[in-house]
């Protein structure tokens, strides 16, 4: 006797993986409908020339449109067929033996991903130099790398507050501003060097983190978000209006550039190039900045990973899971929240002073709410609490829009005036919606335990809480 479940598979109608002909037919049908619809809508454009109006045909656009519909429909068929096939074919291991858990997304990414990403990050300037074939040509890319790494660092800093401690902070950019203005003011007023100002900026930002932390300790969720949002705006408005100190909206310019431990990147006798006996090039400073922010970002990561394994890190995560239980276990929740705010703010301050030294100019306009929103989006999209997820989030959200700059060929299709850059926020929003549908807990949502007895197993996001404010 065969078991009933196997009969269906034996009756000759073995599930077909993908019926290409039928899919093509249907896709062609969809394409034809799209063609029919686009004739009245897309195919002609009215143009005015003097007093006359005449029609300009746009068959190229129609062709692209129809091709997109055709392709999407075909992909949709392929997707559904594969899914149906997978459901129809029973797995040999199904329910007969212990289910061996698939390695989680994190484990898959981390095994190859972390050395890979680190390698790419370290060798990035050289790779770009080789690809672009010259220092001058690689300027744009190194600059982009610096920008992305700045956001990686900010994301990692905010991850401490939002991802680990579960405190929703919408005003993180305030600490970035504190760090930037600390360096700008200390260096222009007192002539302190970058390496002295960097820790000072971190300390000042941490101090402001605690100042923000105190009043909001009792708040949760939406209320916390609103107050932190307000804090971010207050800092920006103070920077605009306290003209005596900050020079207001005009900002602070001619901030001293970074030096290589005292050696300026200049063409002069006492410059970096002359000291090492190499030819001077403007890119030397850029590459130095790149490695500086890489080192700062890795420091952030190292400290965060370290903190996660220390009692304070576990207390943060416990606080995110259940604050009341924390109190019953003798954890001082006030201090724990304040340390999260302070340490997160400190890294924001480091990143801020790096921003000031890179730009040589700071103004309040760099620290608006959109920055906070982007940093928060990086953390949420990457996966709260996951370091590698946040790094990926930063690359996608900051690097992704840059791709749009390099899509010039699209203007051949959509007309000369088409600028893909203008669709940046639209794509950004669509990406967000797609993420919320398919991976609502971020790209890497699993949590890695901070300690294990026998085997470290990733914890599914269904158990991990987001925190309540």
């Amino acid at each position: 006797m065969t078991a009933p479940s196997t009969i269906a598979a034996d009756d000759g109608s073995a599930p077909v993986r993908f019926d290409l002909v039928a899919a093509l037919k249907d896709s062609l049908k969809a394409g034809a409908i799209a063609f029919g619809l686009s004739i009245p809508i897309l195919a002609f454009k009215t143009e005015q020339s003097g007093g006359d109006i005449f029609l300009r045909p746009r068959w190229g656009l129609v062709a692209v449109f129809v091709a997109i519909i055709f392709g999407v429909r075909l992909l949709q068929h392929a997707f559904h067929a594969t899914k149906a096939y997978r459901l129809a074919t029973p797995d040999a291991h199904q329910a007969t033996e212990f289910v061996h858990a698939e390695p989680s997304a994190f484990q898959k990414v981390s095994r190859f991903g972390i050395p890979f990403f680190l390698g790419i990050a370290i060798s990035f300037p050289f790779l770009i130099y080789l690809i672009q074939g010259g220092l001058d040509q690689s300027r744009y890319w190194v600059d982009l790398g610096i920008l992305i790494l700045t956001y990686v660092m900010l994301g990692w800093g905010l991850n401490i507050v939002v991802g680990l401690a579960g405190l929703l902070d919408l005003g993180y950019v305030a600490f970035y501003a504190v760090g930037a203005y600390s360096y700008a003011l200390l260096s222009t007023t007192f002539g302190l060097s970058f390496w002295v100002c960097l820790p000072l900026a971190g300390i000042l930002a941490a101090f402001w983190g605690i100042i923000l932390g105190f009043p909001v300790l009792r708040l949760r969720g939406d209320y916390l978000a609103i107050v932190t949002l307000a804090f971010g705006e207050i800092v920006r408005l103070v920077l605009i209006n306290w003209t005596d100190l900050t020079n207001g909206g005009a900002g602070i310019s001619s901030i001293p550039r970074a030096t290589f431990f005292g050696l300026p990147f200049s063409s002069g006798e006492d410059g970096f190039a002359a000291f090492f006996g190499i030819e001077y090039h403007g890119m030397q400073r850029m590459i130095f900045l790149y490695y500086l922010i890489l080192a700062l970002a890795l420091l952030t990561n190292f400290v965060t990973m370290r903190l996660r394994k220390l009692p304070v890190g576990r207390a943060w995560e416990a606080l995110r899971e259940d604050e009341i239980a924390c109190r019953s276990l003798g954890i001082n929740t006030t201090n724990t929240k304040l340390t999260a705010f302070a340490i997160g703010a400190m890294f924001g301050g480091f990143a801020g002073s790096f921003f000031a030294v890179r730009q040589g100019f700071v103004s309040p306009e760099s620290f608006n709410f959109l920055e906070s929103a982007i940093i928060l989006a990086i953390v949420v999209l990457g996966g709260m609490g996951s370091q590698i997820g946040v790094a990926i989030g930063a690359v996608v959200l900051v690097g992704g829009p840059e791709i749009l700059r390099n899509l010039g060929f699209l203007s051949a299709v959509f007309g000369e005036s088409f600028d893909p850059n203008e669709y940046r926020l639209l794509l950004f929003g669509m990406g967000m919606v797609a993420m919320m549908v398919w991976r609502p807990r971020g790209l890497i949502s699993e949590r890695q335990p901070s300690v294990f007895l026998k085997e470290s197993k990733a914890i599914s996001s269904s158990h991990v809480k987001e925190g309540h404010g």
Partner: protein
Amino acid sequence: MRWLKDPILDVQHLTMRFGGLVAINDLSFMAGRGDITALIGPNGAGKTTVFNCITGFYKPTEGMIALRKPDGSHMLLERLPGFSINWKAKVARTFQNIRLFSGMTVLENLLVAQHNSLMIASGFTFLGVLGIGGYRKAEREAIERATYWLEKIDLIDRADDPAGDLPYGAQRRLEIARAMCTDPLLLCLDEPAAGLNPRESLLLNELLLSIRKDHGTSILLIEHDMSVVMEISDHVVVLDYGTKISDGTPSEIRNDPRVIAAYLGVADEEIEQVEAEIGA
């Protein structure tokens, strides 16, 4: 009445009002050192409110809650900030609706419970980040202590699983183990047997008795399951409408007409008779 001779917990004239509602009304009782004291009463009697006052989640409107340490000194719990009640006064508790850190592993749950001692070992994080000081050793010891408790509650095989994955009974046991990892003098359990099957509740009895025997921890528990209460407790305090209606050994409680009246109610025709009996 041995609990009057050497009480670990001395509650006097405890009153808790929420606006116009009097949740606890002038409650005084003592819990003996090394005893298992049960706090029972019908739903809404104010048992959990008493717990919340003892463990610092509520500040009582009136009254005094004194914890007497073995060396004779005492601490007034109503004056301590919430987190100090566990750390300084050594009172641990569990919750009626289980409050585990469900996204953390079983082992991590037990390490979070040892937060304060580990915090000191890590030099309040400063030394720990730099990797100096005895944090590694302290963490190893903390894991050993966690392992001890995991073996005791029979969850050692699931140490690396998320706490949220455990079945209900195991979560209850884990919550008790987590409270015990804080090394308490007094363990307050809020309905530890709720939702357990008879076998599990038998195991719970054994666990509680062994906690008292091996660790000298006094236990104060709220329970509806009379098999647990009558089996293991040395002393029972009965609350009804925020007032203490009876206080004594389990056998005394069992035969107290007030307790029976509070739990079972009284038929209309018997009211006068019962009132005469209990002197109301």
